[in-house]
């Protein structure tokens, strides 16, 4: 795992480094610390990271805009902040975790667990999407399904519009609510968008959405999708 820590408090950054090293052990591929934003930007433009531990109040400023920007990126964002009252706000924008200060080793371990597969404890309500020169906030309720597009994802909205998100389909799944189901290697669909499951030739399955769109269902996943539809 490649980790970047953005924290202006020297001792706290050191603590994060230490605890992450202890928890992740050999899983750490890279661990870097930046104490200022510009420095972090430079690092990110030159290196790929899996997760950024971001202090919400860099140099005493409210860094929420920064969190939005981070949440729109390909990497996962874990917010570190003394202001625990901002946690829900951060989760809603699609961060994977929010760690309140002060924190101990157990809290870091929990966060690492989430990074390594588990979903965010609080799913996103909106997704931050990078657009030219700005960050758009797309309510999750507007998303019909998500399609993999190489390293990126395409959010297909209910009105038919398509927005590109920098996160991979895997990472998006980590922050999306449970009503989004992975029905195919390349597709995540909102379960209540599915109107019908069709069986095509050669036992291929596909889901018909409310919009009329047809999306393939992976053969191994069809039973699971069926049971979820029955439950809903």
């Amino acid at each position: 795992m490649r980790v970047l820590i953005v924290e202006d408090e020297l001792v706290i950054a050191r603590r994060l480094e230490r605890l992450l090293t202890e928890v992740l052990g050999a899983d750490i591929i890279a661990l870097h610390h930046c104490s200022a934003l510009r420095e972090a930007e430079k690092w990110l433009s030159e290196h790929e990271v899996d997760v950024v531990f971001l202090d919400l109040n860099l140099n005493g400023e409210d860094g929420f805009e920064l969190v939005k920007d981070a949440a729109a990126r390909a990497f996962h964002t874990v917010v570190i902040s003394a202001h625990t009252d901002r946690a829900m706000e951060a989760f809603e924008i699609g961060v994977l975790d929010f760690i309140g200060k002060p924190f101990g080793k157990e809290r870091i371990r929990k966060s690492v667990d989430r990074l390594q597969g588990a979903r965010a404890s609080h799913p996103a309500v909106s997704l931050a999407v990078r657009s030219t020169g700005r960050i758009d906030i797309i309510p999750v309720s507007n998303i019909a399904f998500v399609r993999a597009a190489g390293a990126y994802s395409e959010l297909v909205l209910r009105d038919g519009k398509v927005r590109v998100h920098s996160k991979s389909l895997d990472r998006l799944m980590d922050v999306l609510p449970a009503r989004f189901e992975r029905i195919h290697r390349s597709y995540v669909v909102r379960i209540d968008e599915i109107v019908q499951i069709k069986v095509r030739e050669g036992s291929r399955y596909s889901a018909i959405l409310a919009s009329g769109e047809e999306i393939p269902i992976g053969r191994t996943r069809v039973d699971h999708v069926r049971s979820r539809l029955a439950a809903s």
Partner: protein
Amino acid sequence: MAFAVVGCTVKGEVDNIVRYQQGDNQRWAAADWDDSDWGEAALLSIQDTTGIMWIRQSIDTEEMNTLGLSVSGVVAREVYWDGVMIGRAGRVGKHREAEVVGPIDRVFRIPDSLSVPGRHVVAVRISNFHKPSGISGLRMAIDHGEYRDLVGSSFNTGIIPLFFLGGFILIALYYAVLFINDYRRLPYLLTSLLCLSVAGLLVAESWRPLIGYTYNYHSLRISLIDLLTGIVGLLLSATFAFQFRIAKKWKVIGVLAVILCAALLLIDDHETGTYVAFVFSLLSALAISGWASWRKASGSYLALAGVLICLITLVLSGYDFMEEAFFPAFGLLIVGLLTSVSLQIREERKQHAVAVATTARLENQLLKKHLQPHFLMNTLTSIIEWVETDPEQGAKAIEALAAELRTLSDVSGNRLITMGQELALCSAHLEVMGYRHGVNFELDDRGVDKDKMIPPAVIHTLIENAVTHNAYPPGAITFTLNEYYEANRRHLVLETPFVGESKGRQSSGSGLKYVEARLQEIAPHEWKLSSGSENGMWVTHIELPVTGLT
């Protein structure tokens, strides 16, 4: 024409044309004495007399009931009705020793046998060896009518002002007590004295009709009334001036004092003199309350209304003002004044409450800042790290944090603390932040007087701002605080190094608002705060007045 001239309590004395003759002859009392060779003049225009004088007057009456004759004057007198002596006031004498002073007013009852309609002759034998100096001419009045009416009218004249006497004395006492409790409030004292003077004027006015006095005291009472009139006029304007805090109050009061003295001393006729004095007193009060109303001083409209009512009454009732309308109208004026005083007190209480609330809010803000997650939780996170990795360092940091919080709780409730306390707070904070950031912060405070006063956490907040908004690299960082005096102003200058993007951010934020609110609290509108970058340093400049802070 009540109170000025002798004999004032009865109507008609203006055309009191009489015959008069110097000398003494008992036969001059007779109704049929031929006085055609005597002098003839209005009573009040008769010039001064020496020795005994006789005055005769013919009176026509249609009165059917018991007749009365009112003969007032600054004289001792014997009164004859159709040749019959009906009474006397004092004893007429040929020289000073022989004369006995009598009451200034007396109503004589005419025996029923002589009380018949038709023409009668009044003869009065007088002497006035005890006439007080300052009274010229013959001060006398003769009137006739039903005996009961004449006796009642003097009572009526005296009793109405007395209704107000108790009220004015009570108000005077009440405001005296208020002043004793809050001696800084001069309008209380002035209001009390004003009401007391008005009460004195009431007594002086009512004394003659209700109690009376011998004629030799007449000018004493007149002087007393003049004096009290002047005092009332001055106190009225002074109360208004202090109440509404007008500029140059002493000049206004001084000018009024000169005018009042001139009116009361130079105008020969006492009645005209007091009337003019009152007109000027009320005009002055009108100007002051008018100015206050224009400036929208609280309660000034009521005072203005009171003065206007008084002035209108004065103009409408003319010389009868003192007798009929003065005390009710003045009562209204005082009510207006008192209401405006209480309105102003309410306003001040409100402002005081706001000030107390401000102090409480600032204290709250200051304490909250240190319970704020950004400061406290970051510090605690660092401390946990040291507890786990470097307990010794952790202990030091906890001590520094404790020192900062302790100093803070000591000073936060005060409006002003010593610079020494402030610097202790700053160094404790710098120590905590130094541990957290791995920076060795120094505060150079050699140029500062540690005994001078400053609002709590002002320098502390500026330093905190600098530490928070600058990403200081590990190493030594020195802040400098200097103090100097120039043009009777105290200057405090804090220099903090700045790093990169922090420029500008330091000049905004809730921290500076706190500093501004603190400065405003101790030196309203007399402080200055500016900041900017100079030679790689962020310089914050505080300017305060020299006085009022210690």
